């Protein structure tokens, strides 16, 4: 990474640090403070949006480890999230476990479900794998719908009680926000750490050329399944957070389109970078939120036109923004961000 002139590392540890300089640290701390202060000034609606963004970020981090780093395309993330949410819900409601047991347990269970559907990855790759994960999406949701006795199926859904933490119930949005954001920060740190570790380097080797990786001594079977496991663990955590955020689970909350949008967020943000996952999620969610808010405003400007048209306007604007974005910046927001950072550091020189 390019640093400002005059910044030298005197040890390997210093060179590898995520936050290398004092400005880095101050930006990071400023960001954390902003996260803490924000709920007190934000409206309930924005708070809600932030919680959803946070939960989605966790799911997309998982997908980033699997798809961005290890190169295994998956369109089943929403279903794995559903699996996590329902396992958490069932562990809490049927077995009465406290959240600090139920959440990790649900995450690990989801991890193993991911391994089961990841098994074909050992033999197939690319598009073939994509369709088996598509199968995971359909089969898991089908199971959730048809195991009515446990999950409540399509009609009743599954109600999940609020978390009790040190005797206090997490019953308001602000309390939930802090709870979720703590997990988001934790999982982001975890995702970044995995991507910098031996595991992450093995993933990258597999993505770049799996045969070469195997020749170099990376056990493909083991690492591909580990990739599926970690991805699904993230999905499980995201699902559990979703369960305790929304309080009522329904199979319609984990549809195929969500899986596809998670992939989309990753692509728009920039594959294979932790920042990219966050950028992409925020971009998508804020864009769709803006469209929801402003479509009626545009509709009011043209009272002569039928209102039905504006319902489709959201779809159209969304699609066109994404299309234009990808055509002009197919490497994602993160790529642009890196260019921006580099040019700031090199200023006033071009290179």
């Amino acid at each position, binding site marked *: 990474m390019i640093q400002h002139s005059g910044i030298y590392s005197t040890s390997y540890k210093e060179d590898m640090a995520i936050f290398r300089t004092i400005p880095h640290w101050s930006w990071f701390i400023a960001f954390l403070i902003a996260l803490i202060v924000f709920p007190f000034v934000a409206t309930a609606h924005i708070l809600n949006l932030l919680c959803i963004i946070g939960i989605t970020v966790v799911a997309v981090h998982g997908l980033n480890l699997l798809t961005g780093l290890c190169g295994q395309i998956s369109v089943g993330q929403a279903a794995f999230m559903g699996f996590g949410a329902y396992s958490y819900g069932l562990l809490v409601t049927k077995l009465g476990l406290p959240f600090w047991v139920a959440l990790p347990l649900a995450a690990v269970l989801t991890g193993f479900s991911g391994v089961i559907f990841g*098994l074909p990855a050992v033999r197939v790759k690319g598009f*073939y794998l994509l369709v088996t994960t598509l*199968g995971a999406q359909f089969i898991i949701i089908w199971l959730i719908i048809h195991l009515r006795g446990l999950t409540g199926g399509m009609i009743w859904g599954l109600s999940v009680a609020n978390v009790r933490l040190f005797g206090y119930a997490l019953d308001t949005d602000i309390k939930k926000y802090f709870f979720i954001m703590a997990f988001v920060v934790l999982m982001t740190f975890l995702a970044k750490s995995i991507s910098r570790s031996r595991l992450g380097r093995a993933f990258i080797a597999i993505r770049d050329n799996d045969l070469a990786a195997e020749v170099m001594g990376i056990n493909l079977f083991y690492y591909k399944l580990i990739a599926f496991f970690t991805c699904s663990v993230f999905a499980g955590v995201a699902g559990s957070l979703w369960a305790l955020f929304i309080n009522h689970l329904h199979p319609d909350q984990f549809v195929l389109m969500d899986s596809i949008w998670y*992939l989309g967020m990753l692509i728009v943000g920039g594959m294979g970078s932790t920042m990219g996952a966050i950028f992409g999620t925020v971009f998508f969610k804020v864009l769709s939120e803006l469209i929801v808010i402003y479509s009626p405003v545009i509709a009011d400007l043209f009272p002569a036109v039928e209102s039905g048209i504006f319902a489709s306007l959201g*779809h159209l604007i969304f699609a*066109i923004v994404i299309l234009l974005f990808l055509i002009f910046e*197919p490497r994602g927001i993160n790529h642009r961000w890196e260019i921006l950072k580099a040019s700031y550091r090199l200023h006033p020189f071009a290179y």
Partner: protein
Amino acid sequence: MTVFLQYTLSGLMTGTIYGLVAMGFVLIYKASKILNFAQGTILMFLAYVSWSFFTQLHFPPVLAFMATLCVAVILALVVERFALRPLIGQPLLAIIMVTIALSVLFEGLEFLIWESEHKVYEPMWLPEDAMHLGSLIMSQAELYCFAIAVILVLSLSLFFKYTRRGLLMRAVAEDHQAAQSRGIRVHNVFAWSWAISAIVSAIGGMLLGSIVGISYAMSWIGLKVFPVVLLGGLESLHGAVIAGLIVGVLENIAGGYLDPLVGGGVKDIFPYIILIIVLLIKPYGLFGLVRIERI
């Protein structure tokens, strides 16, 4: 036994449509290695277009049919030129995402113009009287679908085998760079494969629309088609059709016999179960090209 045959027969009819749509998918994949997630939505959109020609504008059937095909070709060329050509050489996933965005775009356009209403052709352009084959019942429209699909498959394979254009397309499917270095305009071939794929989709959409009516839900066939394509092998046109028939028959039989036991929905997941089993045994599908990888 009669019930079994009846399930098989209607499975075959659904299977031909799957086969058709799968063919459109394989065409694009073969030429440009693009996985077209928008296939189902394009089919739905074109079915609505055809409805407008047939029923709203009262074109005579042949004219309406041709007009729909023209719209399909124009649409495909526009999409190829403005959405996909700028992305040649970019990461594969970015291209997949573009096709997903395209599918949302077409959904939006469809809603803008037809508001997702359920439509039927009036008058029907295919005869729809029931036919009796012994104790089996089928509609004539389904039989026509079957015939049209078979003709389409045959003419496409002849096209690939005997025309110059078909030869160029096969050359590009083999290797882009080698084809380009022999003086083939790879861009042109991409545009051709999009156009042919859109024609196949349009016909598939019109046939499907004449059997079950035209609705927003038609775009689901785009997802149904993935297991079909993989079962047949990604590179094989014949494979797509045969796999379409296999999946159509199997899911119909499984749905017919298992639905009452487990409470519905078997049809939606059964293709994937077949697929996962087949992939574990034959990773490249029934007729796919086995890739031998070297470092």
